[in-house]
């Protein structure tokens, strides 16, 4: 499998009153045309890792890496023009809450067309057809209506699908999905995941799926990185999660309640200071 994205020794630091604090400390991985999951609790640095790949580390944060390569392009030295060419067209990101990621005063259609502008040269009518087709592809039943709608006129699930449509309309090679389904109901969640799944298998897209939900990631992704305190503590195949070696991964798995019933009290996670070192 050819690798689409290669990261070595990614570090992200934020200045604070007590001096610089490193929220991501030496993360390395490669991503091919596959589903790679990053799992971690809040503050583990998983979202910052995703943002850094797109060069979206919020200031005053600083991201550095020994290698940050996207399909032959060195992202560390990327100019503004390079980023414009890459973002949207070749790599995109789906955020957790569609409410904050969609422009509230633009119709979904206009935002979709906007996303297309960076793509190939084509007429307005062609772009419109493509945008509508994309809305249909994300299982929106009435694409014409959604095309004309403003974000506030859509439900959470619809909004998230519209958001995914927007991110995918330019057919990127890499999609970073940061908790794309956490704001959704479980039944809608499954549908959204099916869409992502199909895009990976049919279009050969690379997907970086960032989530706090170990159960979801392990059932959806091919490989899983487990992050703790800014580091990857374990990398394993999703199917082999039950044989996880690291006590943190095992702790995360065990502390989830099970429908079939299990231990009472639930086993809790005893954090070891050594994991963070």
């Amino acid at each position, binding site marked *: 499998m050819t690798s689409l994205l290669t990261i070595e020794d990614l570090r992200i630091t934020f200045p604070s009153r007590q001096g610089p604090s490193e929220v991501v400390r030496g993360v390395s991985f490669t991503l091919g045309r596959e589903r790679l999951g990053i799992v971690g609790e809040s503050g583990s640095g998983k979202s910052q890792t995703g943002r850094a790949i797109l060069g979206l580390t919020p200031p005053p944060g600083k991201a550095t890496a020994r290698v940050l390569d996207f399909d032959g392009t060195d992202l560390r030295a990327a100019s503004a023009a390079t980023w414009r060419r890459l973002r949207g067209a070749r790599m995109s990101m789906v955020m957790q809450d569609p409410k904050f990621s969609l422009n509230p005063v633009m119709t979904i259609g206009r935002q979709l067309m906007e996303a297309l502008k960076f793509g190939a040269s084509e007429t307005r009518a062609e772009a419109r057809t493509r945008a509508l087709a994309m809305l249909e592809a994300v299982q929106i039943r009435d694409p014409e209506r959604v095309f004309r709608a403003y974000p506030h006129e859509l439900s959470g699930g619809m909004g998230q699908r519209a958001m995914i449509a927007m991110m995918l309309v330019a057919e990127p090679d890499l999609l970073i999905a940061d908790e794309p389904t956490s704001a959704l109901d479980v039944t809608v969640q499954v549908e959204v995941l099916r869409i992502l799944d199909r895009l990976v298998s049919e279009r050969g897209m690379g997907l970086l799926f960032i989530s706090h939900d170990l159960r979801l990631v392990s059932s*959806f992704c091919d490989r899983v990185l487990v992050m703790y305190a800014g580091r990857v503590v374990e990398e394993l195949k999703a199917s082999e999660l039950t044989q996880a070696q690291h006590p943190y991964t095992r702790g995360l798995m065990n*502390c989830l*309640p*099970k*429908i*079939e019933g*299990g231990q*009472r009290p*639930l086993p809790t996670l005893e954090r070891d200071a050594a994991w963070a070192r």
Partner: protein
Amino acid sequence: MGEVMLQVADLAVTFRRGGDAVHAVQDVSFSVAQGESFGIVGESGSGKSTVLRAICALAPTSAGTIRLRDAPLATPRPARFFRQVQMVFQDPYASLHPRHTIDRVLSEPLAIHGFDRREERIERALEEVGLGGGFRFRYPHQLSGGQRQRVAVARALILEPEVLLLDEPTSALDASIQAEVLNLLDRLRAERGLTYVMVSHDLAVVAHMCDRLMVMQHGRAIEELSRAALAAHRAETDYTRKLLSASEGYTPAEAS
């Protein structure tokens, strides 16, 4: 099973906004025995939280009756009610006043209801939820999400209620913190013989915590089942089965 603690019959909640009427809850009935833990499961908009809010009159009851220890509840609720029924909210970041210290959060209910030995009660309440005295004079922003939720539990329990209404108490918390808070709630129920009504979207959490549960959809109760039935995946409605399979994680392209 013991005496019936809480009984809800034909409950309906209708919100009126301008000319529209939104039927948030329709014809919901259930009863909870003393010392029992009862779960309500549903997705957003199913009306599950509204049921809890209607019990404590935070949402208007448009039809039906709610009885506590076989006595119908008056609206507005009498002061005595708040010493019997308390609630823990979903978002620990929104349920604590940002400018009040933990001390103030805990001492206010004691002052309202004229409790004695307040110092001692506050110290003990913090002790019971696993927060030492070092937390007493902190502000909420100096606490983590899990610690805040412990404070919210302490606030609910400081009036020594018999019934605790739990509105998604762990959905805003990380998995490892969720386990700690669930264990805490479990232990407190055993120690004090509390009655729980717990609302959640997470079937696994409800299955872990509750003896019986009710599934809600679009404001209606569609199924009631026991923990054993849930564990064995013996659901009667399609919707519950769908929830069950979704909560297992992702299943690629199932025949649908």
